[in-house]
């Protein structure tokens, strides 16, 4: 029940990804109607964290629970924590998922020959690449590990 509710909470910057897909949902405890949810940030300064906390509280409160959201930093989040389903979703919306496998594939022509335009992209968790084959510029969910 709680897991299903939390599955409705999306990353506001990549709204196809649930917090479980991203690997930032670390767990939850239920005591009566009180739910303690533990999350961890992707990047220390991720500006989406406040929205995510509010969204968690809101979905739980709509279903009659009292929510308490806790942020932990340890063990640190790495891109290896993104689920397989999450990786597939990223690729579907045109964001190249992080390795493994190490090779970055163009989400348009699927060739693995991309150059880095910028190590830092549109959000803290993305870099900007361009396909050397078809020329498509695309976001890459940068590897952190």
């Amino acid at each position, binding site marked *: 029940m709680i897991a299903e509710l939390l599955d409705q909470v999306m990353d506001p910057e990549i709204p196809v990804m649930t917090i479980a897909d991203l690997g930032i949902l670390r767990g939850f405890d239920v005591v009566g109607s009180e739910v303690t949810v533990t999350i961890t940030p992707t*990047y220390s*300064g991720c500006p989406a964290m406040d929205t995510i906390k509010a969204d968690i509280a809101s979905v739980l409160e709509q279903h009659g629970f009292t929510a308490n959201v806790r942020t932990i930093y340890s063990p640190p989040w790495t891109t290896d924590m993104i689920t397989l389903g999450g990786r597939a979703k990223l690729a579907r919306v045109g964001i190249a998922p992080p390795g493994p496998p190490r090779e970055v594939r163009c989400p348009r022509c699927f060739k693995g020959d991309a150059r880095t335009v910028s190590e*830092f992209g549109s959000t803290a968790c993305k870099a900007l690449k361009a396909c050397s084959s078809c020329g498509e510029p695309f976001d890459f969910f940068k590897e952190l590990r």
Partner: protein
Amino acid sequence: MSTEALNHGDDNLVIAQRLAEWVSRGPDLETDIALGNIALDHLGVARALLSHASENDGGHEDDLAMLRSEREFTNLLLCEQPNGDFAQTIARQFLFDAYQLGLWDSLSKDTDVTIAGVAAKALLEARYHFRFSSSWVIRLGDGTAVSRRRMEAGLSQVWRFVDELFEQYPDLRPAWDRRVDDVLTEATLIRPTDPFQRRGGRDGFHTEHLGHLLAEMQSTARAHPGVSW
């Protein structure tokens, strides 16, 4: 209050504020975004550490960030130095990233579990920051005559704040030297020397630049006490 959390929290807050001054003024869009992203990482670390520093006395991170005076800030002098030109910002960031690589690695084994957790996370980010700043040191140093001159000037401008980094952690110095020297060699730059090393940040004695930075950063919070945004 945890002095350690406060010290490192202040370092990250102040350098984040400095980097944020670049937003919309970067030499190109990608670099502008990069500096903004790095600022955000430092700000996130600062928030985690300042919340931790204030939690034992029932205070709030915002009070520490917005309501302390210059003399109460304990950041390293390097962090508060003005941006100068792009090369000078890169020089400051490069020296600081090289320092944070060793620092976070060492603090990730701290007995304070909150600090250890923040450090382990920040270490991953510091590696990414160091990749960015060192690649620019190499590009500018081993670039044109103009970029080289500016990179040299930038490094020599901030070099007098290097010794202060290791006052508390002398053990971190040898690895820092190696890290920095490797990049300088690749950049074909000569390591600066500056016998007039400045210190005092950890005791609240700052260069003239911190006051101006705080005036800008704190003005809204001080003009509208308790305001939320």
